[in-house]
């Protein structure tokens, strides 16, 4: 195994135990044994706590799919979650993020919802650079509907509804997004909670649309890439000499390989990213958020020219 866990911020996490416990829930988790969702939920909770974001200051938005079945099983004390429609959560989350930038918005969706039902939302969220973190749960299949092929399913593997396997090439999520001139693209592995925590923390800190692909194990339906398949193939980019995460071309090159040496970590970040709201000329100099501004506006000036 060429891959070493980075050392996490144990002490800080211990200091913030009270806040961390609020992310726990009394609801029973319903994921399969060995599901990558456990790790992703854990890493997200830790990342939020380590970034000083309490349950009361985050809106967690979930698509439909196995990951979404955890929507009411997180942030049990003081938390706000939104469990939306299949393929559409990015847009709902974006609307929420624009309304109140003081509340961190995190959206999660699977590979089915994101790359079959709703790629348009992803494309334009990247272009628009809405201030939010998006986590792609890529388990390379439709788990909740019992193992059909997704746009990420590897070519030739028999799946429910595609007994002869899929003839089409899978989409490479990070490469796809990097082609859109994004401001933040990262990749992590669902079973490496510590590394994923760091990646998610970087995503939470990013000013703009942070896209994080999590390669997620699915022991029930994804036989092509089970957990052991990943471990010796992962290569964190921060361990690659001369890797420059501000270099889009280098990131696109790094994102390519999904078979032999899979690059993980923050593949690309524009540290000077300007988010959607900051780009709007009509909002220049306005310090309040849209949630603070709901009041009757005097239209007298606007109708002047129509008199």
């Amino acid at each position, binding site marked *: 195994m060429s891959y070493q866990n980075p050392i996490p911020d144990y002490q800080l996490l211990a200091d913030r135990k009270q806040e961390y416990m609020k992310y726990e829930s009394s*609801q029973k988790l319903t994921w399969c044994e060995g599901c990558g969702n456990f790790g992703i939920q854990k890493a997200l909770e830790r990342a939020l706590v380590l970034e000083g974001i309490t*349950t*009361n*200051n985050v*809106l967690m*938005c979930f698509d*439909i799919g196995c990951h979404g*079945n955890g*929507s*009411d099983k997180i*942030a049990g*004390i*003081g*938390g*706000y*979650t*939104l*469990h*939306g*429609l299949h393929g*559409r959560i990015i*847009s*709902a*989350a*974006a*609307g*929420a*993020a*624009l*309304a*109140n930038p*003081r*509340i961190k918005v995190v959206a999660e969706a699977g590979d089915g919802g994101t790359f079959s039902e709703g790629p*348009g*939302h992803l*494309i*334009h969220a990247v272009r*628009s650079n809405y201030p939010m973190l998006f986590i792609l749960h890529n388990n390379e299949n439709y788990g909740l509907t019992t193992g059909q092929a997704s746009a990420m399913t590897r070519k030739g593997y028999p799946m429910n509804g595609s007994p002869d396997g899929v003839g089409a090439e899978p989409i490479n999520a990070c490469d796809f997004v990097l082609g859109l001139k994004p401001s933040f693209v990262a990749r992590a592995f669902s079973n490496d909670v510590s590394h994923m925590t760091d990646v998610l923390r970087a995503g939470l800190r990013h000013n703009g649309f942070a896209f994080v692909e999590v390669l997620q194990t699915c022991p029930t339906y994804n036989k092509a890439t089970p957990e052991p398949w990943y471990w010796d193939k992962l290569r964190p980019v921060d361990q690659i000499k001369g890797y420059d995460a501000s270099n889009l071309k280098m990131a696109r090159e790094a994102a390519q390989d999904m078979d032999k040496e899979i690059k993980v970590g923050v593949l690309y970040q524009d540290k000077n990213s300007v988010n959607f*709201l900051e780009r*709007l*000329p*009509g*909002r220049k100099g*306005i310090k309040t*958020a*849209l*949630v603070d*501004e*709901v*009041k*009757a*506006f005097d*239209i007298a*000036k*606007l*109708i002047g020219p*129509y*008199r």
Partner: protein
Amino acid sequence: MSRTVLKVAGESGMGLLSVGHIVAKMLRGMGFYVHSDREYPSLIKGGSSNMQIDFGPSPIRCLSKETDLVIALDREGLVEYLDTIKEGGVLVHGFERHHLIKDLQEKAAKRHIHLLYLPAHSIAHELGGGELMVNMVLLGLMWRVLGFQLKPLEEAITEQFAKKPKLLEIDLKCVRAGYEAKGVEIPAYKIPVPKSKPDQILIDGNMGVALGAIKAGVRAYYAYPMSPSSSILTYLANFSHETGMVVKQAEDEITAAQMAVGSMHMGTRALVATSGGGYDLMTETVSMAGMIECPLVVVLCQRPGPATGLPTWTSQGDLQMAIHSAHGEFAKIVLAASDPKSCYELTQQALNLAERFQAPVVPLSEKQVCESQVMVNLEEGEAIAIERGLVTAPKELAALKSADRFRHTENGVSKRWIPGSAPAGYYANSDEHREDGVLTEAADEAKAMMEKRMRKVEAIREALPDSVVFGPKKADISFVGWGSSKGVALDAIEACAEKGIKVNYLHFDYLWPLRDEAFRKFHKANPNIHMLENNFQGQLAELLEGKTGLKFKGRFLKYDGRPFYLEEVVEYAEKNK
């Protein structure tokens, strides 16, 4: 009640709109009531279009079928519109040689129509304006026919083209040449100019929606362009530097609706507008808003369907679609605007209702309402206060529990608070859920939650205003309608009164949940009752008959993309009184 009807006809792109707008503005400035609309194909250049202006000394709420005056900018305008001109009317044009000119002259002579020709094309070319300024020459001529002063027209043109000084000079020369009307025998055509000027503005329905949204504190507008809703996006975007509103052209209608739900969920006010096809795409989101009890307002600007239909024409064909839209059973509110003022007011009411009842609201509009320019006074009447139904008092916020969010209450409305504003959080879950939003598939919990949500239907019905009677309590013939039917019905009441026919009209602003008390009373008092609807089936008639068992004597339905014209309704009343 005397009105004059002026039509500017030509191909799209020939400058008929600028002529139309200048004339409408001038007439309004002179103290006339003005009502104008344009008919145009779904093209940017080419294709026959026209702009019609009805004007007169008293309020004008609809368009007429026949015209008094036509400015024909193209050959089609000359040939096609002659038959729409009343006896004694005027048509100005610039075609010396037209293969049909003899026929047209004979036709005009028979009906005493003045066919006025001025070599507008050669005049425009000689003055350096080319084809684009033919409109100015003919405008000048028409202005002369109307018997109005040239100077105010010159001033209006100067204002309109102030940013193009070189062209302005030629524009003015062309207008003067037209007004001089060398060699043209000007018919005696006298229109008395009103002595006072009404304190009203001339706007279209979409501007009414935009201003209503601004007034109601909408802070985010999301839309995908679709006729006839598109100009709401234009208006709000152009106002955004003054309002600070986030105006986002989304990548599709699903996105627009989803972003609105996200923004509303987070606690601000958002708005979406579209037309039928776009609304179809939004319906899953409407259903979601019903489930998570999130306020959502989607303005549905109707045009004739099915499918792409007649994209630039009018219809009231989506009432039942709106009422029954989206899967599952949940409380939904449907309203319908009838003119720019009601667009302004109902947009505000829609946002209040959406927040008070935590439900999706669909204010209907229609091309005829969206784009007709009508004179209104928005400030008249009582201001509509913003009602949000949110928990905001610090003490109350501190005492909230997660289960308050979807608590089973008597009227089905539970407490709602802005995420982050209270120590207690909650889950907004599109899956069936318990009072705190946690998923459940238990039969008793699912049943109880469905009943809680559906209790809102009756609470809303009680809160909505009933339909309203216009005209006398009892009449020879009675109409019932919604949307743009109101304008034509009100004008028909006046026009019929002049003919000694008593007409009254029952109007629905609030359509769903349907209230029928006023209808029952109206029906009882007025047995000769007829539906006036711009659709094939008589959709409101079906709803009312189905709910009350009372029948209409007749249904006056129109589904050719055109609105009801005044003459048609008067004629129908005469026949069926």
